[in-house]
């Protein structure tokens, strides 16, 4: 189960993720990201309530990061310890801007 809360204003979008970002929920997240991308210069992913991430979720993050590199910046915030560990072992801690 994944819940995505969306907020956009002045070219900045915040997606707050709650639950599990896995093979089953990644497509939902992917379409939410795609829907919000056009016209924004800043994307913030709030991971405060994100409990779990697998490679399917990482793929969407990487796609979003690539896209945002061409049109602005992307931040990932409030990452908990377990998700942070996944970012670290996969080198994502270096390619994502984690706050």
């Amino acid at each position, binding site marked *: 189960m994944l819940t995505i809360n969306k907020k956009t204003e002045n070219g900045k979008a915040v997606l707050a993720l709650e639950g599990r970002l896995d*093979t089953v929920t990644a497509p939902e997240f992917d379409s939410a990201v795609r829907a919000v991308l056009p016209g924004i210069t800043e994307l913030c992913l709030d991971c405060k309530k994100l409990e*779990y991430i697998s490679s399917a979720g990482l793929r969407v993050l990487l796609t979003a990061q690539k896209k945002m590199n061409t049109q602005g910046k992307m931040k990932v915030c409030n990452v908990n310890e377990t998700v942070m560990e996944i970012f670290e072992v996969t*080198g994502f801690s270096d390619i994502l801007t984690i706050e």
Partner: protein
Amino acid sequence: MTDDNQKSVTVILSGRIDSGNASETEQNINKQLSGYNSDFTVVFDASNLVYISSAGLRVILRIKKAYPDLKIIGVSSEVYEILEMTGFTEIIDVEKAYRVVSVEGCEVIGEGFNGKVYRIDKDNVVKTYKNADALAEIQHERKVAKLALILGVPTAISYDVVKVGDSYGSVFELLNSRSFSKILANEPDKYDWCVDEYVKMLKKIHSIIVPDGELPSIKEKTLRSVRRMKDTLPDGLGDKLVAMVEDIPESNHMIHGDFHTKNIVLAGDEVLVIDMDTLSVGHPIFDLIHMYNAYVGFSEYDPKIVYDFQGYNTKISHKFWHDSLLKYLGTKDENRYKEVDDKVRCLSYAGLIDWGTRHPDPDPQKSEATIELWKTRLIEILQKINTLDFDISADEQTNANEIKIDAITDNLEKVIDFVNSRLEAVDCLPKHQMQLDIAVEEIFVNIAHYAYSPDVGKAGVKVEVSDDPVTVTITFTDRGVPYDPLKKNDPDVSLSADEREIGGLGIFLTKKMIDDISYEYKDGKNILTLKKALN
């Protein structure tokens, strides 16, 4: 009328019995019964009884006092209603008269060895029985069909027993029905749908566990047949065959026993299975044998037989057997098909030889040539196989530590829940639990995406926990395309976002989450083992 052997005496009741003639009738009956003591069973034949009032019923009650063993047979629906309303059916043994149905000129919609099925009107069919003991057979089929329905098999239950000529029949309601044989013969675009629904129904039946003693074991029946024909085989092969049948594991799972496309019908938009009289319990190979017989075995010498029986040709019947067996096994691996097909054919030929010997074709030359062909093929198979058992993938949970489940991403949650349920007994840190979840997800999803694509097959997930230090071992098996995921190079995690490729992370992440991972390809199976210590 008397029958001294059974010590019963029959009295015929006819016309109307009411207050006007009750005492006269009573005197008459008593006259007929004089000389018979109370040990005799009094049978009132009510075939010609039109009406009975309470005065008449009192007569019967008085006679029952003198003759406790009393029954009324051949009761019409009208009279039965009176007896039921007054509570007589509870105190006296009452047998209803059978409605008489004529099947003259009716369309024959099915024919088996035991009788024919006629359509008597738009919504009803009657199944007739050739055997002398038809009533017992009808009762048996009604009983097992009811049992099957209660256990979850969509089937039709006969709602009436009728008299058809000298024998009996059971009546079923089958609205707008047509058999899968008819559909396959006339609607080629529905072929894939037929295979899907056919296999779904077969798996449903095989997944049902039957309470002890409710149905006979089909293995016993097969053993009798194999023992009858074993001496026709050379070089001790007969004994080998009997031993192999004896070794087939017992099972309490349901077996239909005659599961071919004539017995699967589409009634409205519902798929039903009919012809339940061969319902039994046993290993799934016993159903596969009868399927093979229907599509290939019977017509192996003379292909016309399948057309006469099913209404479609051997091109369709052979393809249907091949495709439905693969689907049933949840694989597209032709070697796996061959392995099971050989085992099925082995028992099929044995059964056909026994059957063909006991029911020879009127043409002795043809009869002999057919049996010779079956025998040659049986000997060929018997020389190369040593067991008739095979892995049953029909049931999802095979034992407490392992599940076999369709490898589709929709089942991911089930798999993770299963693994976690196995870990409940050990003290597993949330962090370790998540790491295991990730590893399980990556591997299972990998199988779901690639092993059988574009088809669907089974994945096995086995969880074992050992002590000192507490270590979890998770083994994944599938029968899909051989693939060693460990051969893949790890992604370079030092690259920038723009340089990195989107894929290739799953296996890498798995390796990071656990302590040890190994792969082997054995007996047609991909086997991937993960190990993690929980210290």
